[in-house]
């Protein structure tokens, strides 16, 4: 080879080698030195973060009957940029989704400004309708496929449905559009119910389809837990139907009924009136959404006498048979006159003060107890504090300390005036007596199970404190049994085959201008059965009933409702009747007029 050609070859080799060296340097720079930067850019361009939505957990009663569940629905969306035959699409959408054709056409013709040029282009994302049922969506998709119309797609969603509509509405509650619990158990147990969304990083191809092979980091969703309530829907149905009947008969402004198992504190049924349909909430007034059993404050009236009497007995100031002079129905204290309704009594035993519901008798027990001790007993029974039931918005009521009491408060508070209590507190106090002095936390949640059905939390019976000695509670139970007898105020609360213990309440309502209304009452009855081994405790409370020809007392209005509910409830719970009380019930039935209040 000549020298010149060898030189040329060397030059060429050198140039090629230099070229490769430059490219190699660039490659090393891209692949090694700046690899993180470019990897991040590529990842950003091609990968997407998909959210995998968790399913909201369900709510069921104690037997697993669904009270809240999810129903899959679809959102109909149109990408107008790919629609070829808009008229056919509009007609199909209008027909299947029951929308006016003109409105659909208008939506399909919607144009949006393009980002760069400002030119108007058909919108790529037009929501036609939310919450379309699966059947309708299927039919619509089939028709469009048949007619070969492109441009419509579905987005999968779910709506919360409440199969029992208005039943137990205040307890179950509801969720908003974002699936967030707004009321009831839906709100109080939202953290358990909502679960946790999962996610996945994946890549898309040029057409925007997911490339499953390039899925990267993935975290599966954790579905919401299922909440099982202590409520038994069969008992709830009984309570609701009796409440409906009472609403028809007495037309009260509002009514509440709570059914509990005193030995465990479980709430077996809870109903309020007015109520509302959980599936049709639009336009429902706030007042109807209120769970009055825990949010309404009432003056409990005579049912509160159990607290004062329990205090006097526990402090050993009196015995059940001790005589108290009841001033023949007219007692002057602190410059005001206190009356006993209807009857004036001479001397009554402590037992009879409860049986006859004497205001003067119980006021004297209050005076004997003294302000501080009476206040302490009221608080020990749980008044003035939230009961702790697992429902949102519970209030604690109002119990003023003795420093804020007036001269006559010591005679009014013992009979349930000048105190603000919730119906739940009243029924829980009655449960305390039934439970031989043990105050329990009311429970409405029985257990929480995960998506696999494994119990992850349960709520055992929670004792708050021993309020009074069991012997004192026993003495009170004896008196309360007599209340539901022909000599007591609640003869109409009797349940054939069962011995019932309970107390009536008839409280005048506070007037807006001060003092008390003379024709507006809150009537109630709180009782339990069987008296010696309680299985059920129930409160029936009606605000401003229109009694018609019936006297306006709790013994005449609330006690019969209690009786009807209890008769049906014991049959459902299969409680064996005691033949002795079948006979007693027969004699009582003939003496219904013997009941006073």
């Amino acid at each position: 080879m000549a020298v010149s050609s060898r030189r040329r070859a060397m030059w060429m080799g050198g140039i090629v080698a230099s070229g490769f060296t430059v490219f190699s340097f660039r490659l090393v720079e891209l692949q090694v030195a700046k690899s993180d930067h470019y990897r991040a850019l590529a990842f950003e361009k091609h990968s997407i973060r998909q959210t995998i939505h968790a399913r909201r957990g369900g709510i069921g009663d104690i037997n697993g009957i669904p009270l809240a569940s999810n129903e899959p629905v679809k959102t109909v969306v149109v990408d107008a940029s790919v629609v070829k035959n808009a008229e056919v699409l509009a007609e199909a959408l209008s027909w299947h989704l029951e929308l006016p054709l003109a409105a659909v056409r208008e939506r399909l013709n919607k144009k949006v400004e393009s980002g760069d040029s400002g030119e108007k282009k058909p919108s790529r994302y037009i929501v036609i309708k939310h919450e379309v049922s699966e059947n309708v969506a299927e039919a619509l998709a089939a028709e469009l496929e048949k007619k070969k119309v492109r441009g419509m797609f579905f987005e999968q969603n779910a709506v919360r449905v409440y199969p029992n509509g208005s039943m137990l509405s205040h307890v179950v509650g509801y969720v908003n559009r974002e699936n967030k619990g707004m009321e009831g158990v839906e709100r109080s147990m939202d953290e358990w119910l909502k679960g946790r969304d999962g996610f996945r990083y994946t890549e898309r191809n040029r057409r925007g389809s997911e490339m499953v092979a390039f899925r990267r980091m993935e975290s599966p969703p954790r579905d919401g837990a299922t909440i099982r309530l202590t409520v038994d829907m069969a008992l709830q149905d009984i309570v609701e139907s009796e409440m409906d009947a009472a609403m028809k008969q007495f037309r009260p402004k509002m009514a509440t009924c709570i059914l509990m198992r005193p030995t465990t504190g479980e709430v077996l049924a809870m109903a309020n009136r007015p109520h509302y349909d959980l599936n049709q909430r639009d336009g429902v007034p706030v007042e109807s959404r209120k769970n009055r059993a825990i949010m309404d404050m009432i003056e409990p009236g005579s049912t509160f006498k159990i607290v004062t009497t329990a205090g006097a007995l526990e402090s050993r100031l009196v015995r059940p048979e001790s005589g108290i002079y009841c001033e023949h129905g007219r007692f002057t204290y602190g410059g005001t006159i206190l009356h006993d309704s209807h009857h004036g009594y001479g001397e009554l035993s402590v037992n009879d003060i409860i049986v006859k519901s004497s205001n003067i008798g119980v006021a004297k027990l209050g005076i004997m107890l003294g302000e501080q001790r009476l206040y302490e007993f009221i608080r020990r029974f749980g008044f003035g504090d939230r009961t702790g039931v697992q429902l949102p918005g519970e209030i604690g009521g109002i119990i003023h300390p003795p420093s804020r009491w007036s001269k006559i408060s010591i005679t009014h508070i013992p009979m349930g005036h000048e105190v603000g209590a919730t119906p739940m507190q009243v029924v829980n106090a009655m449960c305390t007596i039934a439970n031989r002095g043990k105050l329990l936390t009311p429970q409405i949640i029985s257990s929480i199970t995960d998506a696999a059905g494994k119990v992850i939390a349960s709520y055992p019976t929670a004792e708050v404190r021993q309020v009074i000695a069991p012997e004192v509670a026993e003495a009170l139970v004896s008196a309360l049994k007599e209340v539901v007898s022909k000599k007591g105020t609640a003869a109409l609360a009797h349940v054939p085959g069962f011995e019932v213990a309970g107390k009536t309440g008839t409280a005048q309502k506070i007037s807006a201008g001060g003092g008390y209304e003379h024709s507006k009452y809150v009537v109630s009855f709180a009782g339990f059965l069987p008296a010696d081994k309680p299985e059920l405790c129930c409160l029936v409370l009606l605000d401003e009933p229109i009694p018609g020809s019936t006297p306006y007392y709790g013994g005449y209005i609330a006690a019969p409702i209690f009786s009807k509910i209890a008769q049906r409830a014991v049959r459902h719970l299969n409680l064996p009747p005691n033949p002795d009380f079948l006979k007693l019930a027969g004699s009582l039935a003939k003496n219904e007029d013997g009941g006073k209040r």
Partner: protein
Amino acid sequence: MSSNRRKNANLLPVAKILLVAMVLLTIGGGALYYVNAKNEVHRYGQRKKELERELLAVATKDEVVTSRISKLCSYEALRKRQSLEREAFAKLVPVADTLVVRLQDRFLSPVESQLRHVSNPQPAR
């Protein structure tokens, strides 16, 4: 014979050629296998996606049916049906208390051969 007079022969380096061919074949085969495997991965990915879609569709249908069953079995639905039937001929008659028989716990005799109660005491009517 001197080496200068030896006949020149173009010997083929068969071993080397074979080695190169083997290497090239291995590389080529490996590359083809790699491409095929990649295609398989994508195909299985698509299949996985289809199965996920089918599973979702089945789960959705299950949820729809479950929701429908719970609606039809609800107390609210039962009440509506009851009120309809009250107006129609198929009337539901409540069971009277006197017709309810409550069974007590089985009487356990300490002696196996002893006669046992076979009926419950009847409540007074």
